[in-house]
C-alpha cells in the first residue's frame, strides 16, 4: 500500500493477531487448571478477529470469517450447551446433571469432565460467534473508517 502511515500498526498486528488467537485457545483448554474458560477464551478469539478488521479493514475480515459463519458458530455453541443437558435427560438424569452422562457409579469423574469440556466448547462457540456478529453488525454499516473519523 502506497503512502500508508499505519505501516507500524499493520506489521505489529500481523505478528500479534496469531499470538492472541493461540492465547485464546490456551485460556480455553487450561480453564480447568488456571483462571479462564470458555467465556474469556471466546472473547479473546473474537478480539483477534475484531483487531484484524479494525486494522486491515472490515471487508477482508468478513472474507476470512464470514458473517454467516459467525452466526452459525453462535447458534451452534448454544445448541451444544443445551445438547449436553438433553443428553443427561436422555440417560435418565436431571437436565445438565453430568454424573448421569455415562451412568457412572458414584465416585466416577468421567461424566463431570466430559460435561464440563463439552459445555465449555459450547460457551466458546456461542460467545466468540455472538461477539463477532455484534461487531460486524455495528462495523458493517460504515463501509470504511477514515482516519479523520477518529
Amino acid at each position, binding site marked *: 500500500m502506497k503512502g500508508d502511515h499505519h505501516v507500524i500498526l499493520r506489521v505489529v498486528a500481523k505478528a500479534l493477531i496469531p499470538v492472541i488467537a493461540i492465547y485464546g485457545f490456551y485460556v480455553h483448554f487450561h*480453564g*480447568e*487448571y*488456571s*483462571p*479462564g*474458560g470458555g*467465556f*474469556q477464551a471466546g*472473547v*479473546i478469539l473474537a*478480539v483477534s478477529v*475484531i483487531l484484524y478488521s*479494525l486494522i486491515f*479493514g*472490515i*471487508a477482508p475480515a*468478513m*472474507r476470512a470469517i464470514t*458473517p*454467516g459463519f459467525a*452466526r452459525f458458530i*453462535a*447458534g451452534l*455453541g*448454544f445448541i451444544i*450447551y*443445551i445438547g449436553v*443437558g438433553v443428553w443427561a435427560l436422555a440417560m435418565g438424569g436431571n*437436565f*445438565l446433571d*453430568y454424573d448421569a452422562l455415562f451412568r457412572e457409579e458414584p465416585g466416577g*469423574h468421567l461424566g*463431570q*469432565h466430559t*460435561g*464440563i469440556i463439552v*459445555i*465449555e466448547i*459450547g*460457551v466458546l462457540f*456461542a460467545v466468540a*460467534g*455472538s*461477539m463477532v*456478529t*455484534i*461487531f*460486524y*453488525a*455495528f*462495523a*458493517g*454499516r*460504515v*463501509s*470504511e*473508517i477514515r482516519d479523520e*473519523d*477518529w
Partner: protein
Amino acid sequence: MTGFEGATLAIDLLNITLLTILFVIAIAIARLRSLFAIVMLSGIYSLVSATWFVALDAVDVAFTEAAVGAGISTALFLGAMVLTSRTAKAEKGATKIVPLLVVIATGAILIYATIDLPGFGDPTSPANTGVGVDFIERTYPEIAIPNIVTAVLASYRGFDTLGEVGVVFAAGLAVSLLLGFGERSLGASVRREDRVASLKKDEEES
C-alpha cells in the same frame, strides 16, 4: 514491624493508589465530551479495575474484566461510536445538579452499608464459613478438577451459565436483527472493487 505488617502496608498503599486512579478516570469520563476519549478511558478504567481485582485475589474476575471490559467492550464501543457523532452534547441546568445529588445519595447509602460488612479476608465471615468451605471441600472429590471457579461455573451452577450464554446469544441476535447482519458493507466493497476492475479494463481497452 514484622514482615507481615509490611506486606499489609504495601497492599494497602497499592489499593489506595489503584482506587485513586479509578476515581480520577471516572471524573475525567464524566467531564469529557469527546466520545473517542471516553471510550479509551473506559477501557483503561476496566484494565485498572482488573489490576485491582488481582490485588484482591479475585484472579478469575480480573481475567474476565480484562478480556470483556478492556477488550471487547472497547472494540464494540468504537464500532458503535463510528455510527454516531464524535462528541456528546453538554448538559446544562437541572440535568447537571439532579444526577449529582442522586449519585452522592447512593454513594452515601453504599458507604453506610459497608459498615456492617465483614473485613476483607475475614475467616469468620459468612462467605468463608458457609458455602465457600463447602465448595472447597467437595469440588475435588466430586468433580476432580483443580480450578474451583470453573467447577462451580460449569457444573454446580451449570444452569446459570446456560442462562448467561443464552443472554450473550440473544444479544448477538438482537443487535443483528436491529442493525442488519453486516453483509451490507461487504457487498458494497466487493461491488466497488468490481467497478474499479471494470474501469481499469475499460481504460486498457480504449
